[in-house]
């Protein structure tokens, strides 16, 4: 029915421009139907708001549409996830997580800041698995609110608290291998000082060191897209144009996985209290915050991260395992046996 109403409403809109050729009665009818459609939408939204399900577990409060899952389970999952990163309850209790499209008016917010999150791709259910999907999205949105401007810049606006070495290290290594920036290439070659720059954990960041002009030029040439005037100027030798393209924003040269991998390393090496300490710190640079939180210099941390990242990363070893080699040689033996027993000579 909605589809029919929508079609009629659309036709009302299209006929408006040619009303002098159309029947007035038909136009009035279409507009009437368009109004009806708006009323139906409004009533549906009201019902949705009335059915909002609010739930909490510990300090975390979640509001989702009723029938769309258990808010308490989602809150439980979010609390557990962030507790794993040492985020104190007092911080978590400052927010209320609200599913997009659900009104907050029906629920008690108690001066909490509302964080809107999306429902994952039309899913619905009441089990823990569904709650886990919802909690992923809620945690993702919450991470944006937990980060101040320095950490938001460092972690690219958000941080997924469910990341692990298994999920991020391979991507971090892939970026190191790609070697787009001098710091990354030299970090892979063993220079801890360059790992500091690559990760963007300097105490005194310098965009000129992070992004050398030659690398910027190379990166632009490597882009398979038509060049704008600024890009052309850079390629043609204008260093200031190159600097203007890459050095704004002050991001670290590493990819997001590299920095997330570093956060996972910090938690593994220094415990779950590191991230809250870094977030609570007001120092302007990530490097200074890390020094305060861990007692180690960024140079020591970057060197330790590199050592931690590389050895366990060979997910697909070159060496054929005993099982694979054994089964391959077994196949060889079976085929040889079959060949030896062949009746070809009798054909």
């Amino acid at each position, binding site marked *: 029915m909605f589809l029919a109403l929508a079609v009629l409403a659309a036709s009302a809109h299209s006929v408006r421009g040619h009303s002098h050729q159309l029947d007035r009665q038909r136009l009035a009818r279409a507009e009437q139907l368009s109004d009806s459609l708006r009323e139906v939408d409004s009533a549906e939204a009201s019902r949705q708001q009335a059915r909002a399900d609010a739930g909490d577990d510990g300090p975390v409060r979640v509001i989702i549409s009723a029938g769309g899952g258990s808010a308490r389970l989602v809150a439980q999952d979010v609390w557990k996830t962030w507790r794993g990163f040492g985020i104190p309850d007092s911080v978590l209790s400052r927010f209320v997580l609200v599913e997009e499209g659900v009104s907050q008016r029906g629920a008690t917010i108690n001066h909490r800041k509302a964080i809107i999150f999306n429902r994952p791709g039309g899913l619905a259910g009441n089990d823990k698995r569904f709650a886990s999907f919802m909690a992923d999205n809620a945690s993702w949105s919450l991470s944006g609110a937990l980060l101040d401007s320095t950490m938001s810049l460092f972690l690219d606006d958000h941080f997924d608290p469910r990341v692990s070495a298994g999920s991020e290290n391979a991507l971090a290594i892939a970026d190191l291998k790609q*070697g787009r920036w001098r710091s990354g290439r030299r970090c892979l070659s063993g220079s801890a000082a360059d790992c500091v720059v690559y990760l963007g954990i300097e105490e005194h960041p310098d965009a000129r060191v992070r992004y050398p002009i030659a690398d910027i030029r190379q990166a632009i040439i490597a882009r398979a897209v038509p060049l704008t005037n600024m890009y052309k100027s850079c390629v043609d030798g204008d260093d200031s144009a190159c600097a203007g393209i890459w050095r704004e924003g002050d991001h670290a040269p590493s990819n997001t996985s590299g920095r997330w991998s570093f956060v996972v390393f910090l938690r593994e090496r220094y415990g779950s209290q590191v991230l809250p300490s870094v977030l609570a710190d007001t120092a302007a640079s990530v490097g200074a915050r890390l020094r305060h939180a861990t007692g180690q210099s960024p140079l020591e941390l970057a060197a330790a991260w590199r050592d931690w990242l590389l050895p366990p990363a060979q997910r697909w070893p070159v060496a054929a395992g005993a099982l694979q080699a054994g089964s391959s040689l077994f196949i060889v033996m079976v085929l040889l046996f079959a060949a030896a027993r062949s009746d070809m000579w009798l054909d």
Partner: protein
Amino acid sequence: MNAMLLEVIRVQWTRVRVTAVLVTLIVFTLPLTILRASDGPVTDAMADVGGWLRAASFVGRLFPVIAALYALYLGAAVWLDDMRGKHVYALTLPISRERYVVYRFLAGAVPVVLASVGLLLGGALAALIVHLPSGVHAYPLALAFRFLVATLVCYSVMFAVGVTTRRAATTLLAAIAVLLLSQLVAGVLDLSINPIGRTIDVLTRWPGPFAILTGNWSLFDV
């Protein structure tokens, strides 16, 4: 060693030696070409290790292709003389057919071992030349062993096909025809199945027989 086996090996080597030496040289040289990926001197502590890793990954993709093609050639060449002579020579020998087949197999496998040794030496030489930082490793032995096993598997298949009976060959061809036909039918009827792709997946993914051909073939890696 058995004199007859040595003679079979000698005859077989005479037939394939040009290709065998060529392939051995190629697989010996390929690891050394990886070193050209770095801009600076290869012994430089701050050399572009990422360049080597990328080059090793690229060159690594060539090894399974070489292994499969080389095995195809050796598997076909090993029975060529017997087929031309309609197996009369084999039947006149004073040994059992089973033993003769094993001799033939070993004769055909010698060039495989030779190429693997060539790859091992080339990889080891490349690993000795470069200065690899901590956390980055060279895998010459693992790579050569993977090459040896992969080539032997493919060679065994070709070897077995070469000595198969007419009925078995017909069955094999019929199976391939059915596969092609089902792919065609699936395409015409717009079905969401891909029989050829699925078969390749089964064969090349663990525990498939050709899983050894896929995976990591990089001389240098983390």
